[in-house]
């Protein structure tokens, strides 16, 4: 049977339909609540999807991934607060449109743009995943080590704040990945005689702690009642033919930008949305409207941030390097199901790429339908007091973590990581590189060791692919601070010149 037919026919199981529906509802709710992210929801869902078969389990996780990127536009448009970071750029024009009495149009055009963006990403996944994995099959230990470094540095580069803090977080993650048995000799490392640690730090417990518990703790610690009331005047809902014409160019720009940004490891919809919004503004006939309620602006941002989903999946599944933080979490579940993302995945089971693409498409259509029908109801959710949400997330995190191995030790680890995550947030240390380091630690160590044993440092230095990837990694770390330094120096110089001029005038 052809992989395409085999892949799509795996979705005909009624359990899969139920899982997609559950994932869509859960994802929309998670997206609509500011404070809950897709990463957190997928981490939480990992606890109860591990009992399912891989395809139904993936149906839940992938649908959450897709639908959270629809639901998060609602608070972005109605209360000027992104539901998840992927909808930051939606607020630029979405809230302005809502204030102008065009909230209905903003919500529906955002939903259409998000759906089109996701489909663009899925097409990229279907076209590029298998060729990319074939190319990556040629990679030896040196190239694989370089790829791991690349993934880590990209996440550090885009995490914001000082690069050194991101690097420290990455190294901490790699150190956590060293807990357990040495991958080659089997010697116990940092297990302190605790049998549960001989398999390493429980990954699901760690990510639920870092993303779920820490998030709730942070909100509890800093919560202040919001004075912003959701917009309730919606105006017209569906775009006219003229509106669609206006949306054409930003749809193309958003789709292109999102596909490229999504394929870069560790970058997500937040960055893609902002870049596409800016690109659309530069190419618009009416750039002055951007940020003041432009339909072009919201379309470009939402198409782009959703187009990253396919690119991100492509990188994750073909190379084994997470395309974004949701994928970092999802890899943990995949490994438990026996699916090892990486170059050999699609050569062994090419039908999986079509099953995943099919799931994404079904999830997109379903979520678009829900988005167009149920937007008014979601407004009421925005008025729900946060204490209900905090209690639900905390208890679900605990029970979900326990359910992975039926072990209270995991719950303790989760709580410890929750407190560590809170500490990191308070001191501006990004948690993403820690998760990535924990996930990729064994891959990094094993490949570096093999590369060095085969031919010493020369084995890495003489591989053009490894050198190119490592060069890009270094540039990703060095260029942003250099650019920032130059920008500061220029503005300081401009300020000095201005002061000197005004001094002359006074004199």
């Amino acid at each position: 049977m052809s992989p395409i037919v085999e892949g799509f026919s795996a979705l005909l199981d009624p359990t899969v339909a139920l899982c997609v529906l559950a994932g869509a509802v859960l994802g929309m709710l998670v997206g609509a609540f500011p404070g809950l992210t897709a990463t957190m929801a997928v981490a939480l869902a990992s606890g109860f999807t591990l009992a399912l078969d891989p395809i139904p389990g993936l149906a839940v996780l992938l649908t959450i991934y897709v639908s959270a990127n629809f639901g998060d536009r609602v608070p972005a448009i109605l209360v000027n607060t992104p539901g998840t970071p992927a909808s930051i750029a939606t607020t630029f024009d979405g809230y302005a449109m809502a204030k102008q009495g065009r909230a209905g149009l903003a919500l529906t055009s955002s939903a259409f743009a998000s759906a089109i963006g996701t489909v663009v990403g899925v097409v990229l996944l279907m076209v590029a995943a298998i060729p990319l994995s074939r190319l990556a099959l040629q990679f030896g230990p040196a190239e694989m080590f370089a790829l791991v470094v690349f993934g880590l540095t990209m996440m550090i580069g885009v995490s914001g704040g000082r690069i050194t803090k991101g690097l420290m977080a990455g190294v901490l993650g790699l150190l956590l990945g060293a807990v357990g048995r040495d991958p080659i000799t089997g010697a116990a490392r940092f297990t302190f005689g605790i049998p549960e640690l001989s398999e390493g730090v429980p990954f699901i417990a760690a990510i639920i702690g870092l993303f779920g518990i820490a998030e709730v703790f942070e909100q509890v610690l800093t919560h202040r009642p919001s004075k912003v009331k959701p917009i309730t005047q919606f105006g017209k809902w569906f775009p006219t033919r003229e509106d669609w014409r206006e949306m054409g160019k930003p749809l193309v720009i958003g789709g292109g930008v999102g596909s490229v940004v999504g394929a870069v490891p560790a970058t997500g919809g937040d960055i893609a949305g902002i870049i596409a919004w800016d690109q659309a503004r530069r190419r618009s006939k009416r750039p002055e409207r951007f940020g003041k309620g432009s339909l072009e602006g919201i379309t470009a941002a939402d198409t782009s941030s959703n187009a990253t989903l396919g690119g991100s999946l492509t990188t994750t599944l073909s190379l084994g390097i997470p395309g974004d933080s949701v994928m970092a979490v999802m890899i943990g579940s995949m490994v438990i199901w026996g699916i090892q993302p990486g170059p050999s995945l699609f050569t062994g089971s090419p039908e999986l790429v079509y099953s995943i693409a099919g799931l994404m498409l079904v999830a997109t259509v379903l979520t678009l339908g829900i988005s167009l029908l149920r937007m008014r109801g979601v407004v009421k959710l925005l008025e729900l007091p946060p204490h209900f949400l905090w209690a639900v997330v905390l208890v679900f995190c605990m029970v979900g973590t326990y359910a992975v191995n039926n072990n209270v030790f995991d719950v303790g680890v989760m709580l410890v990581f929750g407190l560590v995550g809170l500490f990191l947030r308070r001191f501006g240390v990004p948690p993403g590189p820690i998760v990535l380091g924990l996930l990729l630690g064994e891959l990094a160590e094993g490949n570096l060791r093999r590369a060095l044993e085969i031919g010493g440092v020369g084995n890495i230095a003489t591989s053009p692919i490894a050198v190119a990837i490592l060069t890009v990694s270094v540039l990703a770390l060095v260029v942003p601070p250099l650019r920032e330094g130059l920008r500061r120096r220029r503005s300081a110089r401009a300020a000095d010149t201005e002061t000197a001029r005004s001094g002359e005038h006074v004199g």
Partner: protein
Amino acid sequence: MPAAPIPAPGESGAAEAAPGPSRPRSRLRELVPALAGLALGLAVLVLTAQIPEGAGLTGFSPRWWPEGLALLLIVLSVVHAALSWARPGAGEAPSEATRTGALRLVSLVLTILGYGVLWYFIDFRVSTVVLFAALTYLTGGRGWKALLVFPVVTTGVLYLLFGVLLRVPL
């Protein structure tokens, strides 16, 4: 220009996205992670010495990777401390914690620890209803709907999902 708050990219949580007061970054806020990193690096170095060397099957002992990482962490911590001391940034600081928030947080952690003990002695359904009610009360929920109906319904959903459908021994 956009009026919305722009959180740090990288999907690390929407708390970053939530609007909040921002203060200039203090030296202390930068030095604490550096000191923590330094202490952790040194502790790992000490612990690494306790890892058995192995039978010399390969050219690399099980110690070399964590040792290398610990040294890297120490170097990065020192560099970060030096950079932060020399040029304290003025970027966004995290939202300011409130006194009520801190009290609530401590009581939440204690409640969760207490739940661990309670679960050991009392049936999951009963202890979880108590936990939900306590968490809701501590975070500001009041009234019979918040403290009775909500805990019972959510515990029911939780038990149905994990205990009945997924057959997790709760």
